[in-house]
């Protein structure tokens, strides 16, 4: 790399002009990242866009068809269902996660002994493989009493006389996948909010108490505003990830029954790999991009405000 002589000159330079002329080093250091990014992200995106304008059917050569895929999907009621499902799935999961995340953070914040232990314990769902989480919850909701937790317990408690097939109806299936997604994600929210709460200065609470605010008012007027930044960031991040989630729904329901839980990612997979229509499959994912861009733009604005300091 740089020789001693250069180092000498460089240090001279840095004494006079701190940290200028780093571009060479920077390029060198960033090279692997740029190669990765251009070759395996940017280039595929470009090809994705190109594919969306063709009628590529696997095994046959592709033909340019312009906007045909887009028009087809815009008029396809299966796709309308997919969009609706994706939004329902995402918004419900995120809402649940915010609320339970706050609750979890409050509980942990108020815990003195073994806080680290409990915080660690509660992160368990977050580190578990999504496939295993999906399988687990599929069994939890199973309709055979030997396999389904809820059926076993409710039957034994006498609250049910016959096993219920929770995932057999569209609503039930959506509820099941939302719960699985929520369970997987709320610890991340909880831990983030906890970290946020811990960085709220104690004086603000004291000041509020002095002003006569009870615990609820303190929460509303001190805690929540203090967490505003985190809440926004985590919500946006989760929204972005969930709207394109594949694993949970694919493993739990494959998008069924019918198309009741089909979302962007699973439908794109189905069209591309089962119906072998790559042109249309890619277009499905591209439809989610505007939502994505909006989300990314917002996140960037919030997260980068502090970075550029």
């Amino acid at each position, binding site marked *: 790399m740089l020789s001693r002589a250069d180092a000498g000159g460089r240090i001279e330079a840095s004494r006079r002009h701190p940290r200028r002329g780093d571009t060479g080093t920077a390029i060198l250091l960033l090279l692997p990242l740029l190669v990765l990014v251009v070759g395996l992200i940017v280039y595929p995106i470009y090809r994705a866009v190109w594919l969306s304008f063709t*009628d590529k*059917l*696997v*095994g*046959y050569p592709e033909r340019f068809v312009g906007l045909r895929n887009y028009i087809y999907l815009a008029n396809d009621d299966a796709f309308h269902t997919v969009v609706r499902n994706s939004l329902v799935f995402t918004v419900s999961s995120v809402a649940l996660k915010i609320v339970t995340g706050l609750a979890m953070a409050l509980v942990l914040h108020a815990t003195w002994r073994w806080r680290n232990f409990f915080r660690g314990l509660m992160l368990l769902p977050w580190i578990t493989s999504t496939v295993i989480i999906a399988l687990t919850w599929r069994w939890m909701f199973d*309709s055979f009493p030997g396999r389904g937790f809820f059926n076993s317990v409710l039957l034994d408690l006498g609250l049910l006389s*016959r*096993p*219920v*097939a929770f*995932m*057999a*109806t*569209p609503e039930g*299936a959506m509820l099941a996948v939302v719960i699985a997604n929520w369970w997987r994600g709320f610890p991340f929210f909880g831990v983030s909010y906890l970290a946020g709460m811990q960085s709220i200065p104690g004086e603000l609470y004291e000041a509020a108490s002095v002003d006569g605010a009870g615990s609820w008012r303190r929460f509303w007027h001190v805690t929540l505003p203090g967490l505003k930044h985190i809440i926004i960031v985590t919500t946006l991040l989760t929204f972005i990830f969930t709207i394109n989630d594949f694993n949970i729904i694919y493993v739990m*329901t*494959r998008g*069924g*029954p*019918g*198309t*009741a839980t089909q979302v962007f990612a699973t439908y794109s997979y189905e069209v591309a*790999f*089962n*119906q*072998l229509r790559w042109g249309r499959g890619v277009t499905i994912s591209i439809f989610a991009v505007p939502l994505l861009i909006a989300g990314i733009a917002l996140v960037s604005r919030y997260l980068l405000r502090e970075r550029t300091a």
Partner: protein
Amino acid sequence: MRDRRLSRRSLLTGAVGASAALALPRVAAPQIKKGANLRLWILKTYVEPTNKAVEAAAQRWAQKHGAQVTVEYFTFEDMQTKYVAAIENKNTPDVGQLETGAPARFAGMGQLLDLTTFARQVEGDIGKAPANVAPVTVLGGKTYALPWYIMPAFWYVWRDEFEKKKVKLPSTFEDAKAAATALNRPNDNFYGLGQSWNRTADGYGVMQGLMYSYGVGWANKDGKYQSIKNAKMQQVMKWATDIYKEGIQPADTLSWTGSQNNEAFIAKKIAQTSNGPSITFALENALAKATDAKDKKMREDAVANHVALPHPAGPDGRRCWGLALSFGVFKTAKDPEAAMSLIAHLLSPEETVRVMNDSHGQFSPVLDKARAATRDYFGKNENYRNFGRAAEWFVATGWPGPVTAAAAEVQASNVLTDAPAKVIVDKWSVDQAIDWADKKIKEIYDTLGA
């Protein structure tokens, strides 16, 4: 060069006479270079001993010829996608086992070698397949694959349940539905039927059997699109949706995976279901593994009590969809002669019988001499006799027309099982669903021609 040598051989065998050919235990293999290296793709069935037996048969060929065979598997779930991915990536195997619609599809894509001459030789040595199987492998007068066996579906029932309620064993779809209603005991968690309209052969295979038995086809005799908007299809859809509406099935049947009907049947939660012989295998296997006396007795009862009936008939006849497995050679094969030699070896009656013995009745060979050689095996009991007769009721995808790329695509697109699902789950009317399905089928035929 290749064709010349083969035709000389068939001339020779023809000259020597049919009886001489009969005397040969297996097909005289074409000369292949030593050190040939082949990739063979075979179906991974649910009966593990069968898979191992096929692999062993292939390795025997390899040893005999000083060649190498690498066996790779595909499953029921990914059999379409895996091949198509290989075609897309230009790394197709040398020899591939092809399911019912695959020869049509892949030959249509120009991927398979024309095996007409080789097929004639095999015909001379091992015999022909029955007429209803031939359409699978012959396209436009040319043969693209050699059929080996059929893996059909049967109608499994628990005899004791039928006897208890004095219900006759069903022969038609209407019988089956009536029986299901009679045997239904939801309070005991026992249901009369377990038929899922899912995206596996248990779903689209039965749907096709239902359609064809009622005389409905989405393609005509020439393989061209014809509309399914008729009264017979209405009857088909009625059967397909009534079994859900009338509560004679467990509530979550529609979301069953490929294996859940097996489990439900074996656990005696349903009285009837359509399935391949793998249920018999599972029961026989469990009996073989049973340790204590009580367990053993329970399993013996299960084996004795379960009946594999011929698949139900409809007003138009008894037609059952099944997997017809054949061997094709891909154009990317570097050593087509070795490939054909391997196929001839596997199709020989001797090898077929060996694999059969490990198959627990899963598959029914189709070439004459192989069928003859396995007659004893299928005489074991009533179930096995039905297994052996499977070729009689077999019809291929796209009945009454030939198997075409478009027909195979219709099956692969899941439109057949999605149609009843839309009525059951999304509460569409039967007419709406039929219209929707018809539109989708027409679209496929418009894109793929034929």
